[in-house]
């Protein structure tokens, strides 16, 4: 079952070219839907247990996968947002076969990242998700995509390769027989070597997270991607750095993480605030969203780095649901572009003609700026609550970013959707048929888990507890 869940999308992405052109959207939708169903089914049976088989015995590389609570939550969110992206791509992009194939290919990479319990396997999925992202940018991007593409790839690979060396070193110095996480945990590396290996690992994760100063690829990546926002949804899902830190660093480099905790927390808090500050001066919705996402990722990082149970749960919760509402906001920006032909935040008066679109966008933004009752609040509140116990000042500093978020989001919203519609502007139509589903479903999720966060927290909590128990008492 777990292999079905992971590999169904990539299988579909290859088969899609055999399907007649007019059936491709339906085919991709069915595949994405089936994957989501597989995820929900896994949830109903309480996660999928570990599966392990030797992949390259001579090297000690195993194919070990598992879907426990945290993996499952992120996996289901990925499957859900992929389905939404597939529906919107099928509707918006002419002749979408290639795009749909890339979306599905990327889904497998992401699900594999969450499922992998072997470091080399993790690395393989980590890089595999990169290829479709690059192709999306290359095929569907805007004029300056080449620079954005190279920046993105160079940053990503720079980190990944340092991580690869760390992975090799981890097995070598620890004396573990394989790269499987359980074996590596049983053969830990200690002392200063651990710190060095952690830094290698951190390089990769900080790029993906992204953490200041390794974030520069992110705004260009989003700004140069296709207007529809479909590629951006996948880009949002690709911020797996926090997950990698949680899954591998906490158990493999506990001492190093503890030692570097003040610096890392400081960087994360600074990222949150700095990105919110920059977001304030953006005049393009996509860049604004990119910086808003970056600011949220700073908070997620703060949660993970504080090594506090509450904060960590909050971090993972925020990571999961940030994907939902930020992804949906990217799609909403795509819809805005479709209607007024611009992504500028100075359009003005959209509300008068497209009330539902504006309303839904606003509610999604409320989720993003952590208004209570929506999913964003639970995550951000838990993070700040937990981080406060470790470092009150940094928690305060990061908390300022939520105020800044309200400022940048509402300012831009006001100049786009309220104000006066310029004279002679095109007539804007409101949501039509599937648009309702595309924005409505993520919004429903954000409201549901904002009001009733129990099921999601129940997925995350036991795993975080188990993971933290390895760290010893002093936390």
């Amino acid at each position, binding site marked *: 079952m777990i292999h079905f869940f992971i590999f169904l999308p990539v299988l579909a992405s290859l088969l899609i070219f055999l399907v007649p052109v007019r059936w491709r959207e339906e085919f991709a939708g069915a595949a994405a839907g089936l994957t989501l169903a597989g995820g929900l089914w896994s949830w109903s049976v309480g996660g999928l247990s570990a599966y392990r088989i030797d*992949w*390259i*015995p*001579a*090297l000690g590389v195993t194919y070990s996968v598992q879907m426990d609570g945290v993996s499952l939550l992120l996996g289901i969110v990925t499957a859900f947002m992929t389905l939404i992206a597939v529906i919107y791509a099928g509707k918006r992009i002419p002749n979408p076969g290639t795009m749909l194939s890339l979306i599905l290919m990327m889904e497998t990479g992401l699900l594999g990242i969450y499922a992998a319990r072997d470091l*080399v396997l993790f*690395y*393989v999925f980590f*890089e*595999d998700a*990169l*290829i479709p992202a*690059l*192709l999306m*940018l*290359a*095929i569907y991007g805007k004029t300056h*995509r*080449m620079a954005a*593409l*190279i920046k993105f*790839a*160079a940053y990503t*690979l*720079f980190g990944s*390769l*340092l991580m*690869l*060396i760390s992975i*090799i*070193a981890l097995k*070598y110095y620890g004396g573990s027989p394989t790269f499987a996480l359980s074996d590596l945990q049983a053969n830990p590396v200690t002392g200063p070597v651990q710190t060095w290996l952690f830094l290698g690992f951190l390089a990769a994760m900080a790029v993906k997270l992204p953490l200041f100063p390794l974030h520069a690829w992110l705004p260009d990546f989003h700004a140069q991607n296709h207007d529809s926002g479909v590629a951006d949804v996948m880009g949002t899902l690709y911020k797996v750095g926090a997950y990698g830190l949680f899954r591998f660093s906490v158990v493999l480099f506990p001492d190093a993480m503890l030692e570097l905790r003040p610096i890392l927390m400081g960087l994360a808090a600074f990222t949150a605030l700095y990105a919110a500050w920059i977001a304030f001066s953006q005049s393009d919705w996509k860049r604004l969203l990119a910086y808003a996402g970056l600011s949220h990722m700073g908070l997620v990082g703060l949660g993970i780095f504080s090594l506090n149970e509450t904060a960590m749960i909050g971090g993972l919760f925020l990571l999961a649901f940030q994907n939902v509402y930020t992804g949906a906001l990217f799609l909403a920006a795509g819809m805005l572009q479709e209607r007024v032909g611009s992504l500028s935040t100075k359009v003005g008066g959209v509300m008068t003609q497209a009330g539902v679109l504006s309303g839904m966008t606003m509610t999604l933004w409320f989720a993003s700026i952590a208004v209570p009752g929506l999913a964003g609040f639970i995550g951000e509140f838990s993070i700040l609550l937990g981080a406060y116990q470790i470092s009150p000042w940094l928690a305060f500093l990061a908390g300022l970013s939520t105020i800044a978020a309200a400022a940048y989001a509402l300012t831009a919203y006001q100049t786009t959707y309220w104000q006066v519609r310029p004279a002679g502007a095109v007539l804007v139509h409101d949501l039509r048929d599937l648009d309702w589903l595309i924005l409505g479903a993520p919004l429903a999720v954000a409201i549901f888990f904002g009001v009733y966060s129990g099921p999601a927290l129940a997925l995350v909590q036991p795993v975080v507890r188990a993971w933290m128990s390895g760290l010893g008492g002093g936390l």
Partner: protein
Amino acid sequence: MNPALVFPDVSLAPLLPILITLLGAIAATLLGFYLPRRAVTLVSMVALVLSGISMASLWNRGLSAFSGSLQADNVALSLGLIILIGSLMTLLVSFDSAVRAHLSFPEFDALLLYAVTGTLIIAFSGDLVTMLIGLEVMSLSGYVIATLQGSRRSEEAGMKYFLLGAVGSAILIYGIALVYGATGTLSYVGIRDATSGLQVQNVGLLVVGALMLLCGFGFKVALAPFHQWTPDLYGGAPTTVGLFLSTVVKVAAFAGMLRVFGGAMQNVPAWASVLQVLIAATLVIGNLAALFQTNFKRLMAYSAVAHTGFLALALLGNPATGGPALTYYLLVYTLMTAAAFAVLGALQRSEEGFSIDDMRGLFYRHPAYAVALAVCLGSLAGLPPFAGFMGKYLAFQAAFQAGYVGLTVIAAMGSVAALIYYLRPAMLMFMPDRTPAREFPGERTPTTAAIALGVVGVTVLGVLPNVAYGLVANPAIWTILAGR
């Protein structure tokens, strides 16, 4: 009393793969007078396939001939098979591009097979003289092949190759002489025995000899700063020739290095630290220079230099980990480089290659070729799931475990630069473009077959590395690298 007549230890079985190729070369020379070139090429390909079959039949038998001067152990056989794969791909591509490249005469096949014979002799060599003979047979044929086209560019390229190659050979021969002077033997086993406890008469002589050997090999595999002939040669020679020289010849030179440094001279001091410096220089120079290329052919040439650096990392490792790593990487390197050159051969209109900007929108004109080239470039850049990733990973691991941490980090940084220059053409191909096509419009079946072989190879070997790695992973076959 007359001294007893001692017959040399000639046994035919381990010689068979080499003899078959040699017979193929002779047949190609003679048949060339009577048959058209395509028939001769077919004969050559049959000879290569037969040679491959004979190699497979020798697997695990550990035979040797001429009192160990020729080893048909698993190391030789696996390297030999890689050489044959590269040669077969060369011949397949030559079916299509030979006419355009003004190479369409049977002498090309004959010389190619002589070169292959030389490369096989290197892979099978058990002492320095055998190795040298193989190297010279290979190099001499190579010089001729490079100039066979008769254009100014190709003559210039061949001339550079010849002059620098001859200097390299001279240094190599001098090194062999010094090693002989220090150890009193030319066989790998003898040198290893003499140097195992380092009770050599003259360590200084030995070290200088080893370094000269390293220098000589450095010319052949294109380690910086001995790489300067490479871009001119690969860029100036016909594409088919570039394909052959950058894969088969490089594999053979690495086979020689593996035998000499991994086996015979493993315990000799100093060469490893010098090699370390050379590798660092190669990684930096090769990768940086490749960043600034505008012609795809020259890009591939610098990429070949950069890959020399990655390949040589495996040489630094302990033979039990470095040997299989190098072999696997060489196989993958051959498949992906040959396939990339093959796509170039199929699409270019003239032998000058085409510029990277011309690749814009290739995906919409030749979807299959574009995807194939993208796979090759992705693999060359070391992105999983393609085999290039595993190759790089193995090389990094070998060097890392041997304690070359700093060098491994330099290599990783080099890979980032590599990603950028492979990515640009790879991504340009997928960008929509409205200008008219600048490449050859048709399909070329044999070339496509070679490309398919390469692409399927790197994909399968990437997902299931064990298919090839499992064959050579046994450490036991690498501890007897020097023969016994």
